[in-house]
Each structure stands twice: as structure tokens, then as C-alpha cells.
């Protein structure tokens, strides 16, 4: 197991490095000028040059890349110190330093910005997953149990609607009904207390969760229907096992294996940031950050969000693999 984890860790690092390098190249090849975006569309060329010089963007691309990679992960005994110091933009873990530099636009260490935003995105991702799993698995089980009934048709119909609805439309609709008309929830934002955070997360989590839940409903329903036809389930029923035990112990456990795969990938993608939802609901997470960074060509922030996203996806894959072993003993062998 240790060797397996080590191997995966090396692969994770390689994948993240490859994605990061690709992102760096793309960000610099696309015609655009980060210095112009900082100085403003109308700044005079001399002022744009001044900003470019300050941001270190007048160096050749290869030099910029080398400098970025050298700084990204390094070892030092120095403490972080103040923001203008040599390690002022580092996140530190003992001697290990992580440094994405400073945001061109926000003029703050990128690790600080990510540090603020990542927990909020994780919170939203987990809330959305909760909606997806509870609603999706629940409805899927119900539809499979009542196969061919009105409930089954309604669940399948609703899941089709949920999968088809664009996120922004669904978000606006939920915002209009639950926040504007019924005034049950805040319209948007993040709040400043734990209670406000929880109230604020409901609408974006529902918006994200509905599409996922719709997909899970279909997946769980179809898997359960297939599993219920398998020999070991039929044997269990024939032996007089209680329906609940048959469903939960024999059918659901097997039906969950493909769900876990999808769930893991979804979690990775959600932690990478739900761009539309975060922007619509002014949820200050990684998704909204990556949009504004892209629009502003804020290189250090773009690269940091790429690292977060790719790491989240790769790690969630590792978790999925590991969870197979728990659900299916054959995998462990």
C-alpha cells in the first residue's frame, strides 16, 4: 500500500507539473498583455511599460518560467516575514516553502488568496455533494424499488430535466423563488458568521447539486435494477432475507461502485471551482477567482488555480481507487 501511495504521489506531482507548464505556455502564447490589464485599457504606453517593469514581465518567457518554477517549491530556513521580504509571498511548512508570487491585480501573495478561497470552495463542494448524494441516491433507490410506477417515471423525468437545465438558469430560478419571492434565503454572498455562511451556501449548493443529483438518480436506478437481477441477490431473496437487508447489504453496496467513481471525479471538479455558480451567487471561492484571473490575465493567480484544480482532480482519483478496495474485496487482491 505504501509503495502504491508513493507511486501515485509521484504521478500526481508529474501530472500537476505538466498541467502547470501547459497553462504557463498557453497563458503566455495567447495575445494579451498582463501589464496593460493592470494599468488599464487607456493607460499611456510609458505607464504600461513602467507597470511591466514592476511586475517583472519584461524578461523573456523562458526566464520567467525558470524563475517561477524555482520559486514555486523551495526549501529555506527563513521565516515568511513581511510581505515585501524575499519570502513574503510564501506559504511555509517547516523548511518547505510554496510560492506562487504576488497577484498582479490584487498585489497580495497568491498563497494568501488561495488560502482564503479554498476552504469556501471546499465547503460549497461538500454541500453540493451532500445534495447530490442524498437526493440522487434516495430518488434512484425509490425509482428502482418502484420500477414502472408513477414515482419511477416522475424520478426519471425530473432527472432528465435536472441534467438538461443550464446551471445559470437553474441558479437564477432558485434565487428568484427562494430568495427574492419567498425571502427564505440570502440572495447571494458569503456572510460573516457561521450561521450566515450556512444560510448563504444553500442556494449555490442546491444549484450545483440538482444537476448532479439528477445524474446520480439515473445511475443508481439503473445500477440497482441490474444488480437486483444478479444471482447472489436472487439467492438472498430466496433464502428469505429481509428486503431492507437485501437492498442495503447486497444490492446497494454493489451499485455504489460506479457511483463512487463519478462522485470522486465530481468532487475533484467541484473543488476546482464551480465557475458559473460561484460567480452568480457571489460565492468567493476558487471558481470566481479563476474567472476574474483569466479575464485580467493575472498569471500567478491563474497558475495557482490550475494547481489547485489539477491537484484536486488527481487526488480525488487516488481516493476513488482507494475506496474501491473498501467496497470490493476483489480489488484489494
Amino acid at each position: 500500500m505504501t509503495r502504491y501511495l508513493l507511486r501515485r504521489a509521484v504521478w500526481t506531482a508529474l501530472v500537476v507539473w505538466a498541467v502547470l507548464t501547459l497553462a504557463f505556455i498557453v497563458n503566455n502564447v495567447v495575445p494579451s498583455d498582463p501589464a496593460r490589464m493592470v494599468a488599464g485599457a487607456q493607460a499611456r504606453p510609458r505607464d504600461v511599460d513602467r507597470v511591466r517593469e514592476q511586475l517583472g514581465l519584461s524578461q523573456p518567457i523562458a526566464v520567467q518560467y525558470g524563475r517561477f518554477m524555482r520559486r514555486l517549491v523551495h526549501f529555506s530556513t527563513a521565516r515568511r516575514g513581511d510581505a515585501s521580504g524575499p519570502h513574503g509571498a510564501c506559504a511555509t511548512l517547516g523548511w518547505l516553502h510554496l510560492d506562487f508570487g504576488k497577484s498582479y491585480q490584487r498585489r497580495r501573495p497568491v498563497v494568501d488568496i488561495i488560502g482564503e478561497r479554498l476552504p469556501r470552495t471546499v465547503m460549497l463542494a461538500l454541500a453540493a455533494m451532500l445534495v447530490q448524494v442524498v437526493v440522487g441516491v434516495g430518488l434512484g433507490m425509490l425509482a428502482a424499488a418502484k420500477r414502472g410506477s408513477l414515482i419511477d417515471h416522475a424520478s426519471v423525468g425530473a432527472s432528465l430535466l435536472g441534467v438538461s437545465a443550464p446551471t445559470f438558469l437553474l441558479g437564477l430560478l432558485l434565487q428568484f423563488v427562494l430568495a427574492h419571492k419567498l425571502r427564505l434565503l440570502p440572495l447571494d454572498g458569503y456572510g460573516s458568521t457561521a450561521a450566515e455562511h450556512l444560510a448563504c451556501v444553500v442556494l449555490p449548493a442546491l444549484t450545483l447539486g440538482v444537476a448532479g443529483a439528477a445524474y446520480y438518480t439515473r445511475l443508481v436506478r439503473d445500477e440497482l435494477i441490474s444488480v437486483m437481477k444478479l444471482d447472489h441477490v436472487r439467492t438472498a431473496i430466496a433464502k428469505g432475507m429481509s428486503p431492507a437487508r437485501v437492498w442495503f447489504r447486497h444490492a446497494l453496496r454493489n451499485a455504489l461502485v460506479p457511483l463512487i467513481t463519478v462522485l470522486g471525479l465530481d468532487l475533484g471538479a467541484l473543488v476546482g471551482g464551480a465557475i458559473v455558480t460561484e460567480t452568480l451567487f457571489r460565492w468567493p471561492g476558487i471558481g470566481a477567482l479563476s474567472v476574474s484571473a483569466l479575464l485580467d490575465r493575472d498569471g500567478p493567480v491563474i497558475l495557482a488555480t490550475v494547481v489547485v484544480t489539477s491537484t484536486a482532480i488527481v487526488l480525488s482519483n487516488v481516493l476513488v481507487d482507494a475506496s474501491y478496495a473498501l467496497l470490493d474485496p476483489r480489488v484489494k487482491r
Partner: protein
Amino acid sequence: MRSIRRLSGLTFFLLSGCNEPLSAPIPTAHPELDAPVRGGVLHLATTFDLKSLDPATSASALDAELLEMIYAGLVDFDASGKIFADLSENYSISGDARTYAFRLRRGVLMHDGEELTASDVKRSIERALHPETPSPFASFYDRIEGFQDYTEKKSEHLAGVRSTGRYDVEIRLREPDATFLAALAMPSLRPVCKSAGERFDDAWSPCGAGPFKLAPGGWQPSRSVSLVRHEGYFRTNEPYLDGVVYTLGMNAVTQRFKLEAGEIDVFRELTQLDTTRFSADPKWREFGFRETARNLLGEGMNVEMPPFDNVEVRRAVAAAIDRDELRRLRGTNLVIQTRVLPGVLGRDPGFVGQRFDRAAALEHMRLAGWPFDPATGTGGWPTPITYVVTQSGLSEFTAQVIQQQLAKIGLRIELKLVSFPTYLALTQRRHSVAISNQGWNQDFPDPADFFEPLFSTSAINEESSNNTSFYSNDRLDALLARGRRAADPRERQRLYDDADRIVVDDAPWALTLSYPLYVVHQPYLRRYRDHAVYGNFIGGTWLDRGATAVAKRAGVLGSVLGGLR
């Protein structure tokens, strides 16, 4: 079947709900009161994000709005765009128009409680213009004596700025500059507290001498900015508001919902649909107004690239555009036919400028050597021309109309939609783009701010060029140089009238529109006025909301989760 009917009913309910009548505005509590009353917190919102609260590095219109609240300058713009002495008690200009002497008001307190002195003014100017400060406006002040030596680090101090007494500051220019006071009225060089030091530092916390100061922890990046009244503000009765909360990154639909609920007090970024609804609604109409036009739109033609290297083709484009059709794309659009905006010096009201005349456009195409027959659709420029435009609502829609209109004179346009950063990189690069949708927002209300960056030879650069038509005209350059130096407003008026005629006739741009914002506010917000330079100008604004509370939200969850902190 029954469930389908129920579903249809629910859908209809939701859709009709989205188009429901606007809520009634919240009335003013004491309509009989005319004198301002102190108190209350103003709630504003914007879709944009704030980049900087340091006057030395701020670049956007939103930054400028907030800087106007936090910092005061030696001079400032009044609501009509005229310059007045603000932190300075008075100022004088020498006979050679090169020396500006300012006498500061005594007893002006900064947000840190320190008194403002001439050395603070000098330090703030030097800090903002220091070569290591990433200032986007430094070149606006390059006529200050010693600017070059200072920015090339040949001198420790900026020679042209001197404190001649505790309350006296003198700024000397190397040559007369009629725009200097206007540039000085912009926020860039406003005095900052001693905590800002002598050199720019990212980590500095905003501190100035304006009517509001940043609340402790008041800037939550990408979320909100909270300001509180500066009790030591030198205009002793002002500001009337206790504070301002500015929410960032809020989309226009949410802003509308919040205005109707009284959760924000002003709504400036209306969608086209909301502009129509609010301006047509008798309950709200009285509390809406169109802001002063501060921008220009046009079709920029690269005079170094065919077919626009031919002045007749450019004139043809200028005559082929039916601006009235474009105006209808957005309710607040204004048709613009000359270079200078209404209300800005240099605008000759008798000068018609560019206007729609398709017959004339066809004649210009004939003179250019590319005659086009609209009846048969034959002739015209033989190859498609790429038109670069940003992927944003108004620009994109305008481009489609332009495409149709130019097809009628034999110019076939292919639209190339790109992101804003790419649009800037391409259009500001020499020999890169033949025609594009162009816009310009005024930095300060003076014709020089439009003519010089857009049409002077000195504004041409290989990259990052402001003059995106790469248009060069010696006669225009000479007029602009004289206009910049002339002290007499009447002489300046005449010079810029002449400049306007040249630009309109040579048509490096086909001028089309200005798009002032339509603003609506709650009635209880009193004396909320238009301003010629700043959006959300709140000088003199006060709240008369009375006891009307914002309706409670999050009732269900709030009661369950209320104990959590």
C-alpha cells in the same frame, strides 16, 4: 396528464413572476425636510471588483469612485466638471502659466489625526510618481519640472514640487499645460497619511483626508468595502452619511432584487430590460436619471492597412453607419457625430460632424475606386475585412448591425470575437487589425484627453498604442500642441473646434455613440446627483429612510442557525 398540467402551471407561474411589476419604491420619511440630516449607512453595489485603494496605483472607474470618498485633493471637480479648490484654500497660476502655487487650508486633519501640511503634499506626489511605483497615470504629470530626472532615478526628489512654507506648495512645470489642473484634480496625486511612507508599498492601509475612511478590516477583497465617516473632515457638517458599504461583484439581476428590497439604495448597472422597465415605470421614473456622457464609441479604422489607408473608404464608412439604428440597441445610448462630448470644452454646437448618408457613402466608395451597385450587389472592396470586437453584449450587437450596414456599400465584414485582453493586445498592435470597435472613457473632462491619446502622432506605438488608428496628421499635431499650451479658454475652444473638423473629415474613427448609464435610486436617498466625472458621487447625499426596516431575510434558516457564530 395531471402532473404535466401542474408542471406547466408552475412554469407559467415562475416565468410570469420573472416579469412581475416592479415593487414600489420606499418613500422618503420626511418629504417636508429640505435641510440634510446626518445618519445612516449608504449601500451601493457593483458587478466589478476593486483593484486598489491607493491613489498612486488605482486604474479603474470604480477605484476612482472610492478614492473620491477616501481622499481629498488640492483641487477637485464639482458636479458640473469645473475645478474648485478643495484642500487648498486658494491657488494661483503665474503669468508664464508654469507655476502653480497652492495655499493649504489650515487645520485639515488626515484620517490618522495628523494635520495636513505642505510636506505631506510633496511626499505624496513624489511617492506616486516614483519610478518604482506602478502608477498607471504617472505620464499625465510628465510636464512637472524634473520629472524625467526623478523617474530615471537621477535625482532623489522631484525638483518641480516644493513646499515653500508649512501650508504652501508650489508646482512648477517645464512648459505651460492647460490640462495640468484637471490632471491634478484626478485622484492619483492626492495626499496620503505619513503611514504611506515615501515609497509605494502593497501592504499600506488606505488613509487620506477625504470625507470617509476605511473601517477597520473594511476591505474584504472581492466582497465588500466598508467606509465610515471621517469625523475630522475639514468640511465640518459633511459628510451626512455615517458610512458607506460597497458590495463588489454583484450581478445586475441580484442588484435589481436588492434595490427593490431596499437592501441597496442605488442601482447603476441596469440591464437593457431593467433600463426600459425602470425608466417607463411611473413609480420609479422620478428617481432615475441618465448620467453625464463620459465615453465615446466608434469604429476605429487603421489608416496604415487597406482599404482604410484610403481616406475615401473611411469617409464612406463614416457616412454608411446609421447611428439611429445603433442607438436603439440600448435605451440610454446617445448618437455622437463629433469628437468632443457634450459639455466638454471644444464642442461647437453648430458643427454637424459625421452623419448617416448612404448616397454619399456610395459616392465615397466610387471616389476610392471601389464603386458598389446596391441593386445588383456587385462591386465594392473585393475581399472580406476582419473586424475585431470583444465578446460583450453591446459591442457584439453593435458589430452585427455595422456588418449589415457596411455590406450595403460594398464592404464585407467578418466578425472576430475575442476576449477583452486579446482585443486590447491585437488592436493596440501596429499593422494588426484593419477595423475594430473602439471606445474611450474620459480621464478628465477636457478635449485634450480625447484628441491626444487617440489621434496624435506621439500616441502611436508599435505595441500598447492608444492611437489604434495609427493616424498621423501634422496640422492636427500642431493644433493639439497649441491647445495644450493655450491659457485662454476661447483660444482653446477655437483650436479644438479646428481639430474636431480635421478628425471628423479624415475619419480615422467613424463616430457612433456614447452610452451613459441610467441610474435609479430609492426615494429616501436625498440629493443623490449626477456628476460630470465620478459615478456614485455622494457629496451632499443624505438618507431619510425613517423607520422602514429592510424586510427580514433567511427567516427559516436564520432562526435555526441563528445561535451559530
